[in-house]
């Protein structure tokens, strides 16, 4: 154990679906991973390799079948659905490939929405939403509906939303998958800036070019996690 506690720490993490039946699938086989605060990590792997399963576990959307996962120091194994929801609210910011903005809400309302579940007072909520949307450079688009924004702008709104409850971990599932390469670069640059601000960013992708932007690449293969190269030019101080 290092002095700074790991933000993501798994030990022999395993996940089995439909255990004990004909359709039994072993999705994860004893994954050990440690990600510290302020890291920018890519998890790569082909479809079916178990990377979605790993992401769901790391994102506290699911609980492991075996092994343990400590999310920012909290053991998730014993948590029920309500407690998992609170953990997600406080610890995890999600960014999806399809943005997942609520279509009838303005950009500002979309960003403010998660604070409703954290019981943030309404005035503070509005203030923080304004700040967050300005931080991703969309202060002029606050009142726009998602359908009135470009893909890159929608993803920026989604990132602002993911950060609104100030979680330590940002979990991005193919965040550039629906964007052209130039816009994708901009989003990745935004992630790097967030990393520099102290956020832990975990990026799930199958695209090696995208993964190359990260400090560290982990590769999933057949339910097992392998440490990829630690990119020299991005080596952490």
């Amino acid at each position: 154990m290092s002095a700074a506690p790991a933000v993501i720490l798994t030990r022999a993490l395993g996940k089995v679906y439909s255990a004990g039946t004909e359709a039994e699938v072993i999705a994860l086989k004893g994954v050990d991973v440690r990600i510290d605060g302020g890291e920018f990590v890519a998890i790569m792997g082909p479809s079916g390799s178990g990377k979605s399963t790993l992401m769901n576990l790391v994102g506290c959307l699911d609980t492991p079948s075996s092994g343990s996962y400590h999310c920012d120091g909290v053991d998730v194994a014993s948590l029920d659905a309500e407690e998992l929801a609170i953990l997600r609210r406080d610890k995890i910011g999600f960014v999806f490939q399809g943005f997942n903005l609520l279509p009838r809400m303005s950009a500002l309302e979309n960003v403010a929405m998660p604070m409703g579940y954290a019981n943030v007072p309404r005035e503070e909520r509005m203030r923080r939403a304004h700040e967050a949307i300005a931080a991703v450079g969309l202060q002029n688009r606050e009142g726009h509906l998602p359908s009135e924004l470009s893909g890159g702008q929608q993803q920026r709104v989604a990132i602002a939303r993911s950060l609104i409850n100030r979680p330590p971990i940002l979990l991005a599932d193919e965040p550039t998958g629906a964007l052209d390469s130039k816009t994708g670069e901009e989003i990745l640059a935004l992630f790097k800036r967030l990393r520099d601000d102290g956020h832990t960013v975990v990026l799930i992708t199958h695209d090696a070019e995208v993964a190359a932007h990260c400090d560290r690449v982990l590769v999933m293969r057949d339910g097992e996690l392998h440490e990829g190269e630690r990119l020299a030019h991005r080596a952490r101080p």
Partner: protein
Amino acid sequence: MNFMEVLRTAIFALRGNWMRSALTSLGVIIGIAAVIVMVSVGQGTQAEIDKLVSGLGSQRLDVSPGAGRGPGGGGARMNSSSFFTLTKDDGEAIRNEVQGVQYVAGALRGNTQVVLAENNASTNWQGVQPEFFDINAWDIAEGNVFDAQDYSSADKVVILGDSVRRTLFGEDSGVGQTIRLGRVPFTVVGTLAPKGQGGFGQDQDDVVMVPLETARRRLLGSMGLPPGTVMQIALTVTDPKDLDYVQGEVEALLRQRHKIQPGDEDDFNVRNISQIVATRTATTNLMSKLLGAVAGICLVIGGIGIMNIMLVSVTERIREIGLRMAVGAGPRDIRRQFLAEAMLISLIGGVIGIAIGIGGALLVGKFSELPVQLDGQVVGLAAAFAIATGLFFGYYPARKASLLDPIEALRQQ
């Protein structure tokens, strides 16, 4: 999520599909309106019965000639002789010999034509003894009741009921004027204060009163009743608690006076008002139950409509649910949100239904014979039904939404 936040989110969601929300609440609107009309008619009828009982008096007994007991009085057994078994003297005997009697009055009655110049109308007359006015709670509006002279010498004097007075004299009282009952001229000495519609929907004010002996000589015509006969003896008891005792005493006294042997049937019939009312109450209850069933069915159908639409809504918004869960909404938050939407639909439906129900009840009161009574209790009951409908039928879809797996929900397209 606090209450205001849940409410705001629910309103936002319903506005997005306002047409669907409005149509869904239609079922509740109809159900709640039906509840209001039903309850107000039921309460109105009950109030009417109470009025009937207290108006005619829980202290009152009616003795009528003829055999048979109970409501309706066994008309089939009547024959001409059994019509004329009661006399004025029976009334006097009751007054003198039965303890606890307050007022006693015999009466004759019939139909006649009242005529004033070119105005004429058919009406009921009653030939009465003095205490008849007290027993029936008749008040004099103008003029006077009959004096002792009127009764003893069978003067041709008449007191007009309000409807008759209005037909003949319009706005005037008519006191001091002469009218004809049939062919006989009568002097109007007084008018009665209006009583309005009676418990059975008849116009109680369509009546004229004359002294008993006047009626016997001038209005009965050639019916040829035995001397001293009356068609009814009405009496009241001083204390309502004595009613059963007095009824028994009156029956015993009349059997003795009419020389009825033990085991033989009475040739008279003593009834108290609760027996008369019993029949009517049964009818009303049946109608209330029927209306209640209709209202209940409407509410169930409305509720199923809500459940149906909420299930559709959950399916449609499965991605939204997944996203909300991912950003920190717990099952409880999701359940509350959908329950709030269902309850909002039923509550809005309830409010509109209450408005329509009140309007409907007023229309029923105006255009039908049914008595209607509206009060805050009815509205409160309807609101409670609306909320209960939303809760009951909204719970299952809300629970279904809350049990969704966020991973599956997010994967939905």
